[in-house]
């Protein structure tokens, strides 16, 4: 049996490979293969996979990439992820990507879709608008059209149409993927010492790169391996991390949170991995199935409108309850309007429910972890003190 160490080593090398070697090899293995990049927070990967292409999550350059050209495209008061993403592309690291999808998350990603059209005219840049109206005949009708348009773009890319059967098969694979992802999250929230967050993070990041079939295998192996390995259990505070749904925190930040005495038992790092809360129906019209799942059975985040005021922010309270967390760490990228404007509303909901929290900002290339470690450490201590009283 493969051990967790081996599995995570594989994930780590995928994570560190800023040249996307896996995607290149995958593409080269068979003539005509396409790679379709996508940005946070959500795209229907089933359609990409159904077209035979490899969906490739592009989440910026992290703290390992030296951004040289990217800075010339962005003012200092704009977050890091667009500049490092541009850097990845300008330096040729993304030249295996045939199309890029930019979902509607914020004005920065939105404008990046247009920049892509100008800077990389050979790559099909597609802005993917998600509905903010959740009625079937209104937002649903619009969204089905959007999905069909995307299906058309992907069909054009591969040179022939995408059959319903192909999409249904992909839905089944991604359903399995989401079940496994949820199983890993469940495992971590039950026995966080057996699935440290830095490992879970790398495992989830691997899902941004690997073909879903391979990611499913890896997830299964990890679940099995982590169950059978004994690891020291610490008296850590259990926290949910929220706000990192787009620009990713450096891995060291997660390690620092853990080292400071916190178990992360839930997070919103890569929402696309478990956006749908349950299985997407595998029968019937697959595009409609995807649309209805988005409308009625998907997650919540800042970029998605909450029509019911009384429910605003409750997704976080729910995450705290289901994961058995004792507090929340709001870790949000500097200059991120969606995260930082959501923050006061989340804070007020948390206060109303008596859930303690702390907040800080980061950048994907933050190097100084000491202040975060101290802040998280004090938070963990106060939670423990609080629970003892």
């Amino acid at each position: 049996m493969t051990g967790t160490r081996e599995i995570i080593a594989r994930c780590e090398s995928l994570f560190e490979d800023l040249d996307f070697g896996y995607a290149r090899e995958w593409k080269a293995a068979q003539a005509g293969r396409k790679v379709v990049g996508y940005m946070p927070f959500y795209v229907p990967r089933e359609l990409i996979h159904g077209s035979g292409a490899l969906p490739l999550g592009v989440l910026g350059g992290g703290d390992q990439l030296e951004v040289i050209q990217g800075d010339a495209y962005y003012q200092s008061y704009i977050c890091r992820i667009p500049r490092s993403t541009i850097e990845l592309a300008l330096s040729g690291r993304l030249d295996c990507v045939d199309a890029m999808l930019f979902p509607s998350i914020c004005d920065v990603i939105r404008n990046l879709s247009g920049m892509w059209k100008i800077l990389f005219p050979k790559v099909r840049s597609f802005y993917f608008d998600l509905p903010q109206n959740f009625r079937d005949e209104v937002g649903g009708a619009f969204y089905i059209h959007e999905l069909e348009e995307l299906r058309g773009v992907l069909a054009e890319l591969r040179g022939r149409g995408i059959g319903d059967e192909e999409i249904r098969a992909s839905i089944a694979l991604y359903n399995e993927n989401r079940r496994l992802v949820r199983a890993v999250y469940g495992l971590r929230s039950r026995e966080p010492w057996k699935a440290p967050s830095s490992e879970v993070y790398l495992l989830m990041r691997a899902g941004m790169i690997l073909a879903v079939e391979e990611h499913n295998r890896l997830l299964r192996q990890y679940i099995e391996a982590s169950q059978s390995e004994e690891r020291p259990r610490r008296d850590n505070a259990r926290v949910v991390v929220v706000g990192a749904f787009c620009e990713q925190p450096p891995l060291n930040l997660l390690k620092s949170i853990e080292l400071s005495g916190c178990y992360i038992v839930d997070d919103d790092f890569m929402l696309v991995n478990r956006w749908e809360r349950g299985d997407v129906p595998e029968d019937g019209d697959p595009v409609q199935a995807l649309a209805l799942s988005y409308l009625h059975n998907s997650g919540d985040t800042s970029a998605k409108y909450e029509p019911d005021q009384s429910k605003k922010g409750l997704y976080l309270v729910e995450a705290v309850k289901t994961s058995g967390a004792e507090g929340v760490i709001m870790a949000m990228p500097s200059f991120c309007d969606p995260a930082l404007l959501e923050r006061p509303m989340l804070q007020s909901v948390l206060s109303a429910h008596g859930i303690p929290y702390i907040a800080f900002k980061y950048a994907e290339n933050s190097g100084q972890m000491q202040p975060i470690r101290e802040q998280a450490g004090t938070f963990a201590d106060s939670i423990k003190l609080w629970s003892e009283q």
Partner: protein
Amino acid sequence: MSAVKEAVKDASMQKQKEMIAGNYERLATAKETGTKVVSTFVPGNLNELIMCFDMVNNLPEINAIQNGMRKKTGALILEAEKRGHSEDVCTYVKADLGMLAKGNLGPDGRPLPDPDLLLLSYTGCFTFMKWFELLRHQFGCETAMLHVPYEGDGSFSANMRDYVVRQLKEEVIPKLERVSGVKFDIDRLRQYLKESARAEEDLVWVLQSSKHKPSPIDAYFGGTYYIGPIFTAFRGTADAGEFYRLLRQEIAERIAKKEGPVTPDGEIHEERYRLVVEGPPNWTSFRDFWKMFYDEGAIVVASTYTKVGGVYDLGFRHDPEHPLESLAEYCAGCYTNRNLPSRIDLIETYIRDYDADGLLINSIKSCNSFSAGQLLVLREIERRTGKPAAFIESDLVDPRYFSPSNIRTRLESYLQMIEQKRSTAAAAA
């Protein structure tokens, strides 16, 4: 200036002043008069529709601008930050929330009424949604969301149009009816739209008058004043129609007399530079900012900011024959709802059509919607037109981000660049 010109200018200016004061009066007395209040944004503003329900329109951005010009926003922003709002986020939002925290006194010093409806026209900016969620959190009132899809591929598809129209029919209008108690009358809407289209015709004429040499207007600083009625609570009213008629007359006279733009310090006599400007202005030091330009004889002949509430110069007019479809098209076509390549194309056209010397970008810290991608806009415009472009940075209503010396230096060296370009061209000719 002749007495006649003064009178005409005064007439339009006076008119706008009265209109703004009238709207704040309606807001201040809304509770007494039983008038229902709707808060909504400038881009994608559905003023004609709101009027169909006898509601009064309160625009948070305009309050922030008015407060900014009165130099009140610095303290309001600090108040919001003290209450936990991040220093990184849009300062319009913080100026508004700070104003609420300090008793919700409007720019005229009188209390603004709580809104009965938050009408979120979600056009061209993601921050709008967060802003309205924060306001809803505060007021707990009814909210109607109108999601206007972004023109990512550079056009407004039938699917997008149908989506917006369906939302208008099934979400927005029923809520307006419920809150106001007034039944929707589509013929009333047509009537207002007819009035809008007439005024829009005059507005376009005014904005395009800067193709003349010398330009009779400044299309950025002066432009903010010309767009006022149409972008805010007056589009569709007879008052707005009259304002634009007066304005057009005044400018026609200036053209006939070959007069330059009027500034707070009087008329500009020598037009030395013709610029296109991208991005909103700074409001807290608006007059100082403008002065830096007119002191140098730099006239803005076209600007993108005067298109945030509608790009009418590309031909769009509200259409009484297709009222709801036309509102949908209007919302989608606002400047920041157009993709970056379309924005660049528009600027390029401006440089050529208005015979401008170059492009100046005022990059606003607050506004990702405008700012993200502007450095590419700058490069592209330079590449396509061969005209020099320059970049300055400031903020909308946060005085901490307006550095007069930096901006003046940048502007001066930019104007020198234009001079150099001219002498090189002259030498080559």
